[in-house]
């Protein structure tokens, strides 16, 4: 049974300081992955640093540059946000498909990507939106494209003591339609067996897929066929996704089924967004 200290900081610098200096200190926002991991023996924190109420992490605003989503903003806040629903509905869909309503009342977007599951429902949408991850740490601030943030299953580019401060979705927002389509065992309150994000940008399409590789990945082969070679058939384009992925067999689905499903869902995503 774990024994740990709980601290609640009044400022971001204090939180960063503790996280940088103390062994086994973990940031704690929604806790929906952290607590499950602690129970299952995946994490053994000595200290939990509660960051939920830090003002710097509760920023949620839209400006000329884009939308900034602070690390303490919950998935329900995102799924219900007017501008996100209107301008980047793919992110609202991805956020809404995580867990159940009560989980989403606590779970955060930053937490979903920091947990770095290859199946993270918000990751594939962020990949299609050129999202930037703003990081704060003992050596100051830095930003990374979301695609560089994920480095492996459960692994991120965060260095010791670093913390995601916010996620930034830059303008211009996509001109066309975007969808996040998820296959799961029960279709509700479940992890993705396969997750597919397809975003029409007007001139081109961006596609990202989850749960079919060590991290969420872009379907570059499919994008290239459509954006550069003018492939008009969604079915033909979707077949190429096999070049971009390396699914495994696990308790949620076989490698073979994942290969099949990702192709089906990419095709459907293209049909729904590209009108082809």
């Amino acid at each position, binding site marked *: 049974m774990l024994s740990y200290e709980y601290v609640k900081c009044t400022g971001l610098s204090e939180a960063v300081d503790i996280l940088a200096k103390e062994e086994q200190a973990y940031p704690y926002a929604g806790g929906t992955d952290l607590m499950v991991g602690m129970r299952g023996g995946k994490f053994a924190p000595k200290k939990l640093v509660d960051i939920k109420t830090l003002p710097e992490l509760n920023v949620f605003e839209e400006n000329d540059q884009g939308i900034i989503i602070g690390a303490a903003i919950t998935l329900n806040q995102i799924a219900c946000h007017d501008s996100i629903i209107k301008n980047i509905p793919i992110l609202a869909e991805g956020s809404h498909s995580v867990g159940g309503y009560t989980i989403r009342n606590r779970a955060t977007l930053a937490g979903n990507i920091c947990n770095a599951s290859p199946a993270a429902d918000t990751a594939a949408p962020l990949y299609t939106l050129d999202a930037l991850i703003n990081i704060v740490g003992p050596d100051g601030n830095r930003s990374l494209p979301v695609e560089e943030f994920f480095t492996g299953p459960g692994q991120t580019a965060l260095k010791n003591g670093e913390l995601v401060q916010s996620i930034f979705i830059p303008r211009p927002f996509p001109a066309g339609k975007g969808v996040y389509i998820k*296959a799961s065992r029960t279709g509700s309150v479940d992890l993705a067996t396969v997750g597919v994000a397809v975003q029409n940008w007007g001139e081109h399409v961006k596609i990202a897929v989850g749960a079919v590789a060590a991290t969420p990945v872009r379907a570059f082969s499919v994008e290239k066929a459509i954006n550069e070679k003018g492939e008009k058939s969604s079915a033909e384009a979707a077949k190429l996704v096999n070049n971009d992925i390396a699914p495994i067999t696990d308790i949620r689905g076989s490698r073979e*089924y994942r290969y099949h*499903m990702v192709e089906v869902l990419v095709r459907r995503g293209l049909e729904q967004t590209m009108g082809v």
Partner: protein
Amino acid sequence: MSDLKIVGTSVPRKDAMEKVTGAAEFIEDRYMGPMLYAKMKKSTVVHGRILSIKTEKAEKHPGVKAILTGKDYPNMIGLYLIDRTFLAVDKVRFWGEPVAVVAATSEKAAAEAVDLIEVEYEELPGVFDPREGIKPDAPVIHENLGNYEIVPIFYPTPGTNIANHFKIRKGDIEKGFDQADHVLEKEYYVPQMQHVPIETHKAAVQWSPDGKLTVWSTAQSPNVVRQLLAKSLDLPMHKIRVISSYIGGGFGCKAGASIEGLLVPIAQKYPGHIIRIVFDREEDMQGTFTRQALFSKLRTGYTKDGRITALQYEMIWDGGAYTEYGVNIVRAAGYSSTGAYDIPNVKTDSYCVYTNNSIGGPVRGFGMCEMQWGIERQIEEIAKQLEMDPLEVRLKNGMKRGSTTASGQVVQDVDYEKCLKVVADKIGWGKKESGKDGKLRGKGIAGLVKCPAQPSNAASSAIIRINEDGTAHVMVGATEMGQGMLTVISQIASEALHIPVDKIDIKVPDTDFTPYEWQSVGSRITYTCGTSVKRAAEDALGQIYRIAADLLEVPQEDLSYDGKKVYSTRDPDIKATIREIADSCKKCTGEGIAGPIIGRGSFVPTNMTNLDPETGQGNPGLFYCFGATGVEVEVDPETGVIEVIQLASSIDAGKAINPQLAKVQLHGGTIMGLSTALYEEVRFDKGIMLNRNFTDYKIATFDNVPHMDSFIVETPETKGPYGARGIGEQPMIGVAPAVANAVSDALGVEFNSFPLTPEKVWRALKDKK
């Protein structure tokens, strides 16, 4: 029966206010006294010899009060086949089997100490598939099977892994196949599942210096816990008190005795202390009963006009590491092995086989879901082979009044036809709908039957005390685990006594005060406990009449009772109120008449018999409850995802004591059945459970529940209280085959196992191409 006033009305639940306000007490809500907390050290191998258990480090850990291993406490326990110890002795037989228990002053200290215990094992070859386990050269899991104490209606084969072999030999199987025009033979498989009650297993025990043991438990049957502990610990029953508080769901996993006895030696060491254990979800999933997996083979002979003439059924059950309770599921499935159909010639062999998987045991349906899956799937295929309507084949072979079961028992009070037709009508049977966007529609139907699986002498009893003001206390040993026992039993008492339900108090059982009840299992309480309550009420009523006759000086036959007063039918002005009768019990002269009114009633079946060991013929059924499920699905052939469009359930309740509660049971059972049809499966890798959490053991959520239509059919059960029979388990049984039949109708592929996950459906379609 048309003059019933309370029975047949949907009075509010007796426990509703307490539960919605959070006032209802469950085990953990109570402060009971100075506490010690227990945690188990569990086996990390699936089958192995225990070479050593080192507890020295753990003993020195701060807060630790006691550590117990199997060597210290080798007492055996079990309901039917006594094959278990509380802690593994010399050998472990499944992953997660308790090998030691630690009691400490906090849960944390106990858990830390558990980690300090070192156990060394010599691993033994395991058995993970009962079809392998049944072979003569398989590793033997219970070397002492021949020496175990056993109820003499079970037939183990010592020296093998066969814990029970139940046989049915009805009619002449060779003749039956000779009469057939066609024979269909198929194999089926049903995996393990878990009950997933909201509340996990919990128990607390206390030993008092005068040698009295008190047990608080989530047990479905306090009386069986008392009985088994008395035997295992060699204590007289009056020295054991078992209290079942409210239980947060059972579904069979809390039947029999489970963890209570684990704590007794620790309690004896610390008299006055309360030793408590609370299972976490993982422990509940892995360490308590699972539904036994079933590998089965059916061979059915049928004529060209769709009449079934012969059935040969082989069932090989995965009994898991211990089958103290599971042997009876194997027996029940055997004696019910024709499902809801009247088949003249039957040969059934039902085997319970030890494996190194988790312990098999009772789950809602008690073998019927698994066994009738094969029957209902096979009937569907027979109809297809003959190009007949599957509903017609079911009606043609379905049981009717006077039909005989596999064990040759004659069934009465049956209207299976009505159960089938009402769901068929609801889903628009015979009309094929077309799906949208390339999806395919299909309809399916399945029937079901179940009788309580209980010993032929399983008894119930009740006491009713009439208070001085004419209100009453009903005392029974049945448990309340959400099914509505308190309400239904109160209604039966109310009807018979003419005392309003809100003037009746009823509580959860405490063996020191409430009278004997065998178990709250098998959908039997409404019938068995209900009958004893009705008898107790009639006994009390008889006393009311006798006192009134004396008091009013009117012959009993001239008295009538309207619920408020007893009066002379010749002169209604000669009357006494129930309060006057219950309170004063004396004449105007001051002479006493008779004491406070206490009604007593008991019930033991008189229509059940043992079964012939060679033929399985006899009467195992207290009553038979029939029903049916109808489903319409829309399937996405590309992804394999099934959407349930319509779900209709019917059950023949005989008489619904509380129609609203009966419908809720129908809803709940149907959802649980749907959940198993589509999602639920315990997955093992060589005995290690892979999904003992809700991340990967998926159950239906509200989002997965379609609109449901529920139909209560009422064909009175002649001997049931007010014509009622039990319906708790039944609604679950028909759902999986009905869904599979519907998907099969939509896609033209057959399924021999469930759950029908998207991947399984996709694979079946792919294999067809």
